[in-house]
């Protein structure tokens, strides 16, 4: 039987019905039309559906829609402030760190989760923080550089505002 | 006379003949001459091929001209990813 769920998605109240075994990813993509989170595996192994659940990095495919009751979710659609890109998004663009781009929504979210708690990661830290996000096109090189560059930019801008 | 060098799959239908001299000024007429010479040779074994004309690889040849001493080597199509 369908379950009635109230949650907050990208800062907006969201209400939906879902089956007991529907994943949060199913709800986002098929019910709410938020297709920025991608299904690459449906088993938590590729990271393309990475979202922040109450600030914690998870795969939307491994969360039930029903579990979102009363919770806050941030998806890729909620990362940029209007037309102003997040520094991570900006740096991924500047480094041309994406080829097909399907992994990028998940990379942005996972990297954001990292920089939210560690503003000065080294290369190894970034690599392990993104180990749950498969990219088949880039060999990760430019993605890692973009994340390190974004971290530096965010530190500079935080310093400038301090 | 241009010389045609056949692929193994083509030789199956030419009684083992591997090289054929034809009087032709372009690939189309050379192939027509070849087919006339060997009626058992299926068109699909010829028309799907690339060729190397005097060393220059030409994909999907048709009207490319041949010199009197040209050497035309049939080349298997290449799949690509």
């Amino acid at each position, binding site marked *: 039987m369908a379950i009635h769920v109230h949650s907050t998605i990208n800062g907006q109240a969201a209400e939906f019905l879902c089956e007991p075994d529907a994943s949060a990813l199913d709800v986002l993509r098929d019910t709410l039309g938020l297709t*920025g989170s991608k299904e690459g595996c449906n088993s938590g192994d590729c990271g393309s559906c990475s979202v922040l659940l109450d600030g914690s990095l998870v795969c939307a495919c491994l969360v039930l829609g029903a579990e979102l009751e009363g919770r806050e979710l941030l998806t890729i659609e909620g990362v940029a402030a209007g037309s102003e890109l997040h520094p991570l998004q900006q740096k*991924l663009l500047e480094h041309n760190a994406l080829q097909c781009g399907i992994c990028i929504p998940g990379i942005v979210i996972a990297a954001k989760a990292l920089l939210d708690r560690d503003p000065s990661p080294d290369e*190894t830290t970034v690599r392990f923080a993104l180990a749950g996000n498969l*990219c088949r096109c880039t060999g990760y090189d430019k993605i890692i550089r973009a994340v390190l560059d974004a971290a530096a930019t965010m530190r500079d801008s935080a310093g400038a505002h301090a | 006379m241009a010389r045609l060098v056949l692929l193994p799959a083509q030789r*199956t239908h030419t009684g083992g003949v591997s090289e054929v001299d034809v009087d032709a000024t372009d690939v189309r007429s050379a192939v027509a001459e070849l087919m006339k010479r060997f009626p058992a040779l299926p068109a699909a074994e010829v028309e799907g091929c690339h060729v190397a004309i005097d060393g220059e690889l030409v994909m999907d040849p048709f009207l490319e001209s041949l010199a009197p001493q040209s050497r035309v080597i*049939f080349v298997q199509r290449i799949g690509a*990813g």
Partner: protein
Amino acid sequence: MTIATHIPVVGSRPPRPDGADKVTGRARYGADFSLPGMVWGAVLRSPHAHARILGIDTSAARAMPGVLAIVTAEDMAESFSADVAAGESHVDMQDLSRNVLAREKVLYHGHAVAAVAATTQRLAKEALRAIRVDYEELPAVLDIDAALHPDAPVLHPGMFTRGLPETPSKPSNLASRLVMQKGDLEQGFAESEVIMQRTYTCASAHQGYIEPHACLASAGADGQIDIWCCTQGHFAVRSYTAALLGIEPASIRVTATEIGGGFGGKTTVYLEPLAVALSRKSGRPVKMQMSREDVFRATGPGSATRITVKVGAKRDGTLIAMDALMEYEAGAFKGSPAGAGAMTIFTAYAAPHQRAVALDIVVNKPKVAAYRAPGAPQAAHATECLLNELAAELGIDPLELRFRNATRNGTPTVYGATLRDIGLQECLEAARAHPHWSAPLAAHQGRGVAVGFWFNHGAQSSASVHLVEGGKILLQEGTPDIGGSRASMALMAADTLGIPYTDIHPMVADTASVGYNDMTGGSRVTYATGYAVVEACRDLIASLRARAAAVWGVDPARVEWKDGTATDIEDSTHVLGLSALAALSGRMEGPLSGQGAVNLKSAAPSFSVNIADVEVDPDTGASKVLRFTAIQDAGRAIHPDFVEGQLQGGAVQGIGWALNEEYRFDAKGVLENPGFLDYRMPVASDLPMIDTVIVEVPWPDHPFGVRGVGETPICAPMAAVASALNAAAGTAIRDLPLSPPRVLSAILAKG
């Protein structure tokens, strides 16, 4: 043709035009499209690797409420005219039809048998369980030796080996035998002072694109059909779907969605004909998407191979004779890239006596699909590893061995063509000059070097440019952008028109909105589609000059197009820019556009040199790539970031194939690792940065000197990594992948 000398825009690294959509989640990929009234399709797959289909009973499924349509092989077209020549590939429609839906037999575990459309995904899957299929199980043929055994079960009773002196009297699993030869092999080996022969194997590896296949099809009552799908070739989807279902191609409009990786694996069709058939039957738009498991079980991996190479050389390292027997698994239907492998295996070397024998072998596994330089990485693994073994045997530096034997312009290849304008020497020199080559190594570390080669492709592309009010350019092309090609197209257009990059708005148009284009494959997009874009821009410039001449009342020969502006060489007061000319359209001959259409029958061959450093833990067999340098001739790097990206991505795919990736089947032919957990592609923490060196030896037949770059990068890494690992571990493992258990047992075996 002259190469442009003053190139202000090409060679710069601006962000891609479609980038913002891709970092914000707005870009729409294959599974991101929906339509009002849409229903869901699902596929019933074979539980057996080899079985005869005795009957399919769909009545119970059909009777379920919410089930709208079911299709089986009976719904496919009955017969096919001939092979459909679709650009670089040549497809047997009988086989393709049977791969999309099994007819007489199922030929691999996961082979599609029927498809259902229902109002929900859940219902569609339930309906699959209600379909009864009667199978007569047959013994499965699961490897090369089993397939070639004289008493082997035969997959295709109508398949007789091609390429033998006489057509055999009995069918077999050997689809074809191809022999290519130059020189006199016997004489070559007789002249050799050292002869070495080794056998190398590679496991089957999947392309591993992160986006599963997905499509949406909608058939109208008037027979018009729309398809949205993630594909490397939407024109090929049109051709194949039309042929398989007996529909006029012109009635089908295919939109290539953004594509989440392909690497060759999205050059064919799996779901699209099923979705169209279901939509025609149900009268509803039908959406289908594969699970990751479906992708692994039922879409093409690259071939598993066994390659025996024999080389003869002088003691000074001069190669005299090279011979290879190349056995490639095709999967369930003929068409492995054995031939292409044979055409690449010795191409980098000038040895006068060469032979390559290629066998295309069917087995009860998924039909292989193109995978990035199909057939070449396995071939390079064999030759390059053997040359490294030979170098060690002769006490010659392995790079020096390559210098001594590298092919040069004018040297004939084993397949009959003669190479010209190649950059192999330049790549080797870049390797020797690179600090990586001379960097010190510690204990348990080793270094490997290898050369890669791929032909690249040309073929058909068309493009249009339209001048938009305001003076900006809309650029329509028709090769799906899989790695940033819209940026390269915009750069070449901007350069040709003499306007800023950001004034070009490129798009990948659907099959009804731009002229025919062959697929995104064969590393042909920047080369051939780029050429078409340049032609389209030149066409537009001709119109612009004519308009300006008419406005000024002068001879068009006086009008020059420079820096995005028409100028009169005899009157400097005469100046008309794009925006002014656009504004005049309505009072002159109408809209301004340019068309470009090309069929490039040749392409620029490209070479690479890779250097890898690997460290091995001798206690566990674990290995780690410490450093990797990819050097490649790109002809001319239109957008160097994306060229580097190709080199880096190809390197890492090769590293994965070398170290951990493999298809593992059980004794019944069931894939044991159909997921990313156990099909182990490299993750970010497995890797170092991938250094790149772009060598630029321009290809004279392209306006910018472009060579394709996408495929060559995967050719050399497996050999470089394997040689490095064997050097580090003191082993001689010739089978890929070099997984830790295999490495450890080799270490323990040597004591």
